[in-house]
C-alpha cells in the first residue's frame, strides 16, 4: 500500500524549509515519506541538529551555510526540486501543522490539470480554529494581498502549496523573510498561472503556538513589501 503510494508520487518533490525544529521535523519527514519518496529539507542554518534529524528520517537535506529566512529556503528548495527533475513541487512547513493527506489531495488536483498552483487555505472549511488575534492579523493580510496582487485568495499566508513544474519555474522569491508569501501570490498573478484553493487543516499545537508568528511580523512584512 505504502509502496504503491510511493510509486504514484515519485515525480513529486516535497520542499520543507527547516530552522531549529529538531523535536518535530523527524516525524514530519517520516510521515511525508509514507506517501512521497522525495522530501527535500532545506536547513536554513539551524543551530541545533535539525538537519541530522531530517537526514536520518530519510530526507534529502540541502543546507544553507548561514540563516537567510524562510523565503530564501523555499526558493532554494524549489530550485533543488527543479534540478532533481520533479514534475510537481509541494511546499510544506516543518513544524507539523500541515497534513500529509492534504498535500496528496492537492497534488492530485495538479495531476488532473485543474491548475498550475494549488494554494492551501485554512478558511475554506471550519476545521482550523486560529485564535482571535491571529485571525484578525491574517484577515488584514488577506485584504492587503488581495488588493495588491490581483489574486483573490481566502488564505494568503499558508505554507502548504502545490505547484506544477511550470509554476515552480516561474517563481523567483526575493523576499527572504516572511513577505515571501505575498510575493509568491504576486508572481503567480503576474505569470498568469492558473490557480485554485484547496481546503486544508492547520493543526495549532502548543508547540506551533509557542513558535507562532507574532503580530510584529505583520509590520515587518508590510515594510518589506513597500521597501523591497
Amino acid at each position, binding site marked *: 500500500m505504502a509502496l504503491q503510494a510511493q510509486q504514484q508520487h515519485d515525480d513529486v518533490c516535497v520542499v520543507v524549509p527547516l530552522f531549529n525544529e529538531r523535536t518535530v521535523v523527524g516525524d514530519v519527514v517520516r510521515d511525508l515519506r509514507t506517501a512521497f519518496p522525495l522530501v527535500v529539507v532545506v536547513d536554513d542554518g539551524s543551530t541545533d541538529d535539525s538537519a541530522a534529524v531530517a537526514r536520518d528520517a530519510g530526507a*534529502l537535506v*540541502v543546507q544553507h551555510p548561514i540563516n*537567510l529566512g524562510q523565503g530564501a529556503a523555499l526558493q532554494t528548495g524549489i530550485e533543488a526540486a527543479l*534540478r*532533481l527533475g520533479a*514534475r510537481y513541487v509541494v511546499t510544506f512547513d516543518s513544524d507539523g501543522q500541515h497534513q500529509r493527506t492534504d498535500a496528496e489531495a492537492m497534488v492530485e488536483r495538479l495531476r488532473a490539470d485543474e491548475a498550475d498552483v494549488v494554494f492551501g487555505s485554512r478558511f475554506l472549511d471550519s476545521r482550523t480554529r486560529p485564535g482571535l488575534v491571529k485571525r484578525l492579523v491574517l484577515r488584514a493580510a488577506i485584504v492587503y494581498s488581495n488588493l495588491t496582487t490581483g489574486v483573490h485568495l481566502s488564505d494568503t499566508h499558508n505554507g502548504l502549496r502545490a505547484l506544477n513544474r511550470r509554476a515552480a519555474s516561474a517563481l523567483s522569491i*526575493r523576499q527572504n523573510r516572511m513577505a515571501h508569501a505575498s510575493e509568491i501570490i504576486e508572481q503567480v498573478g503576474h505569470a498568469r498561472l492558473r490557480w485554485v484553493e484547496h481546503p486544508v487543516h492547520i493543526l495549532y499545537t502548543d508547540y506551533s503556538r509557542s513558535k507562532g508568528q507574532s503580530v510584529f511580523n505583520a509590520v515587518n512584512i508590510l515594510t518589506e513589501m513597500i521597501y523591497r
Partner: protein
Amino acid sequence: MLIKLLLLVAIAAVFVLGLRAPSGARHLALRRVSVLLAAALAALSVLFPDAWNAIAEFVGVGRGTDLLLYGLIVAFLLYMVTTYRRFRDMEQQITLLARRIAVDETLPRAAAVPPPGPKPAAGGSPAQDTAEGEASGADGR
C-alpha cells in the same frame, strides 16, 4: 512659510527615493557629488557664517543654526533610507551565493545534466543512470 514647503518636499523625496532601486553608476555618482557638495557647503559656512542666518530669514526660520538642524535631519533620513536599500541589495547577493553553495553541495550540477549523446553503459548502476536520464528529460521540458 517657505521652510514648511521645502521640508515636506524633501521628506517626500526621501521616501520616494527609498522606493526606487538605486541604479548602479548613476546612484554612485549622485552619492559622490553630494559628498563634494556637502564639503563645499561646509567650507563656505566656515568662511561666511552669517550666510546661514540670511538664508534662514529668507525661508522663514528663526536662526541659521535651526535651518542647519533641519537640513541635517533630512540628510540623515536620506542616509537611512539609502543605506537600508544597499543592505537589502547586499543581502540579496549573499542569498544567491549561499543558495548556490547549498544546492551545489547536495546536488552537483553534473548529476542533473544529461550526458551528451547516448552513452554506452559503462558499469556503475544502470538503474540510477536511467533515473537521472529521466530527471534531466523532465528538466528540459
